[in-house]
């Protein structure tokens, strides 16, 4: 069964802490994505990556950075966590074929609370 695994389901951090959210996929997908989900705002794209060591900004990259050193792993980094980064973070991956819908497969999510 194909999988996207997010290492932490629930995290509680303090304002100013550095936070790492890890995501691993076992489908050999080229593309990986980080979204955040907030009530009334839907899913908003933070960063994505089409290949190892490549990254692209999404719609809301401010306050975040990412790292993709290996194809299967995509990390989201909050350099200095703030309370407005309290959210559900969702990692996803997809293949990058030229045809088809390139369906995203999502992980179960990481619920981050910043106090």
């Amino acid at each position, binding site marked *: 069964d194909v999988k996207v695994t997010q290492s932490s389901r629930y995290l509680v951090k303090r304002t100013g802490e550095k936070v790492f959210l890890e995501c691993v996929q076992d489908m050999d997908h080229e593309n990986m994505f980080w979204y955040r989900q907030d009530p009334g705002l839907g899913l908003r*794209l933070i960063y994505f990556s089409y290949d190892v060591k490549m990254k692209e900004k999404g719609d809301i990259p401010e306050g975040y950075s990412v790292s993709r050193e290996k194809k299967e792993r995509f990390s989201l980094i909050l350099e200095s966590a703030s309370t407005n980064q309290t959210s559900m973070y969702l990692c996803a991956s997809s293949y990058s074929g030229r045809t088809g819908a*390139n*369906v*995203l497969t999502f992980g179960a*999510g990481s619920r981050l609370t910043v106090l």
Partner: protein
Amino acid sequence: DQQVKQNSPSLSVQEGRISILNCDYTNSMFDYFLWYKKYPAEGPTFLISISSIKDKNEDGRFTVFLNKSAKHLSLHIVPSQPGDSAVYFCAAREAGTALIFGKGTTLSVSS
């Protein structure tokens, strides 16, 4: 500016009836449209997609209709079941770019 809009935050339907979830978009370059379903504390799961060259795609109880001239798509669930109660996200993609999601519609199916 929202490119994918789900104007109804919630929908309530009785078991056995049809659920119709709507989605509007503004970008005529979108080539694929997808629907995802999300339960609380879980990641979204893919339901059904449609290419921009088609006007209908069906998978069991789920049918997606696309009206390109109106820039509108809808997801029909027939018959609705209590287990269908979830948040439904409409998403769209322009070739070579990331999916853009709507804000979601919460469907409640009562027995």
